[in-house]
């Protein structure tokens, strides 16, 4: 082969590799394009559109009309249902999320004891969260908490000669049917807890046992601090999904009775899609985003006080 080019071969190679790299990148983006197109067209664009729509009156049929801050004014000062939905959502987040985490941690600790068939139990306990959002579970939950002659729990109560309770229709009990449903769907935080528990060095427990620490002491002094990053992660994730709760209420109670289960996302949906107030719905969505951001930031702020990272930072060291 005759060298006809004066360019040194090393730099030529660099040009070549550059071209190949660019080509590779192009191919890479090409493969990514279904996702990218989907993201820009069906995620980013609607998000930006909803930000604009939040300041309009838009009913899908007629072009949106700019109304400035009116949606927010109405939401905060005129809409009683809005505040009931806020109340129901906070009630849910502050009960269902801790309850789910406690159950998840308790089950994870049971499964961490290395008994036989652990993998079977793990799968069995995880199953409810896979089914969680499904229509079938909601329908089943209606059956469990159903009225007289219909519900499983009322059937048991009545066979024991006790009076029945209209769980789903009583304003005091209805939200608890959804909270118990949330607690029952502890699967994914449980798996994360389980992974976290396996990371805790056994020596710590052995040393503590030798020093005479009891079960409770070992739990509060070793397990909880060592697990705190995982607890923090689970808490943030579960809190966010708690604020967004929709399916369960939509299917099990429909927001009734007396708006006690009218969760924020459900009310947003009803406003946007039942009476076609897309502008109001968008405004509600952006307020929700703000609220979630604030609570997440607060959690992060608080984390330095109670989350322990082995590699420097946090308390002790």
């Amino acid at each position: 082969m005759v060298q006809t080019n004066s360019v040194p071969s090393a730099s030529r190679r660099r040009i070549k590799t550059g071209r190949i790299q660019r080509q590779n990148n192009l191919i890479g983006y090409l493969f990514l394009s279904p996702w990218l197109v989907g993201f820009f067209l069906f995620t980013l664009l609607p998000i930006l559109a909803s930000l604009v729509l939040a300041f309009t009156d838009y009913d899908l049929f007629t072009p949106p009309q700019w109304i400035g801050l009116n949606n927010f004014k109405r939401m905060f000062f005129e809409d009683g249902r809005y505040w009931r939905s806020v109340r129901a959502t906070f009630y849910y987040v502050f009960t269902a999320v801790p309850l789910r985490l406690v159950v998840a941690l308790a089950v994870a600790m049971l499964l961490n004891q290395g008994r036989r068939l652990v993998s079977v139990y793990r799968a069995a306990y995880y199953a409810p969260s896979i089914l969680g959002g499904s229509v079938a579970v909601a329908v089943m939950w209606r059956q469990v908490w159903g009225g007289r002659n219909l519900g499983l729990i009322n059937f048991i109560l009545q066979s024991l000669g006790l009076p029945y309770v209209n769980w789903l229709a009583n304003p005091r009990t209805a939200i608890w049917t959804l909270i118990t449903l949330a607690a029952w769907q502890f699967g994914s935080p449980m798996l994360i807890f389980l992974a976290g528990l396996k990371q805790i060095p056994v020596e710590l427990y052995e040393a503590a046992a030798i020093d005479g620490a009891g079960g409770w002491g070992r739990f509060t002094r070793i397990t909880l601090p060592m697990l705190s990053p995982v607890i923090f992660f689970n808490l943030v994730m579960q809190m966010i999904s708690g604020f967004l709760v929709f399916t369960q209420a939509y299917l099990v109670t429909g927001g009734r009775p007396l708006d006690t289960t009218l969760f924020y996302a459900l009310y947003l949906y009803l406003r946007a899609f039942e009476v076609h107030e897309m502008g109001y719905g968008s405004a509600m969505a952006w307020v929700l985003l703000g609220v979630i951001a604030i609570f997440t930031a607060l959690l992060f702020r608080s984390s330095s006080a109670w989350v322990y990272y082995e590699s420097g930072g946090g308390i002790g060291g």
Partner: protein
Amino acid sequence: MSDTKLSRRDFLRIGALTAAGAALVGCTAPTPQVIKETVVVEKTVERTVEVEKEVEKVVEVTPPPPEPVEMRIAWWGGDARATKTIAVIQMFQDMYPYITILYEFAGWDDYWTRLGTQAAGGNLPDVMQHDYERITKWVADGLLVPLDAYVDSGVLDFSNVAEATLKGGKIGGKLYGVPLGINSLDMDIAVDLLEEAGLELPAPDWTWADFEQLCYAIHDSLGIWGYAGNSLFHDHMWKQIHISKGLWVFSEDGKSLGYDDDQISIDHLYMILRLYKAGAVQTLEEAVARQGESVEQSPMVVRETVMGFSWSNFIVTTWSAAGKDRRFKLVPIPRSGDKPAIYVKPSMFFSITKDARYPKEGAMFIDFFTNSIPANAILMADRGVPIASHVKEGMKGFLSPAQAEMFAYMAQVEADCSPTPPPDPARWADVRNNVFYPEFHDPVLYGLITPEEGAATFRKKANEILASG
């Protein structure tokens, strides 16, 4: 852009094919009873006559050979309605081989979400099923086209339809919806249980005071509820108690409530609370606890109640769930004043949309739906009692007891009813969902606030929303 359009059409076509497959399955299923065998023969005879008539009409309106037409039709409803409607579409296509109909159907909620999206996207079907409460808003938004030209040209033949019946589909003097059937609210009464209690069937002009006493009497003698099911202060009931006083709940322009006297609602609510206290009717809490139950589990079917209010066309479903050995009677809603509480309501409409590419063929289909006896023999009053008198007459021979009861009740209603009120104002859905139930109906019937407080809150908030509409 055209690509997406093509793929959507393909998608619809596939949908149509699959659904047609389902329809075939439905047809082979043993639905028709033995009596209908003879009917089928009659139908074919009538149908040939019908076909000739229709063909003549086509010849004079459009010069042959017609271009192939592919139009879209959409409706809401369950599987039974779909099977019947698809069979009628098939009949229509057999008559006009150049017309292909693509159809879409869904349950009530999904239907409106879907059609709302299509309206925003400018691709509504040619013909869509419409609803009395929503049609005003759709017309106001310019989404539907008037049909009067097709009536004048004879494509839509309403010579056997009462003018009063068509009035329900008119907005601003123009026809935007052809009623597919008529129905009315009614009180379903389980006659077998009533007789067991040794009680008499109420007179057609009975009052709410009679109703209250009957509930106590039933509860005393059978220990079951006198009334259960839909709330006694359902938004329809709220309308009926004002109609019976000669009032309408909305003002003429729809910008405010149309009555000044809240006492009508308040009295009615106190009656309900008395009945709750006596245990003589199903309470709201009991009803909410059973929300979402199937018709098979409903109080009427499982003999937990003697009365329940409903739309007259529901009796067919209720009776078939309850079983042939049961006996039901439809009587008018009790009166609160000196006028009938009931009116004739178009159960639903077919309308032609602004996006229709083939409005004339759409009108032809609507005409077929309205006037063809064979088509209605398949539909079997699924959308209410047919509006054309010759169709009603033609169907008389082969009605089930439930359908016969519905036809008889509607004949009685047509003879003695209040005028059909205008369609609801466009903002009514908002008022109902966000004020009437959550601020008035539910808190009063849960005992959280008094009827007076509820009525005052409702008046204030409802007027605010209506005024902005």
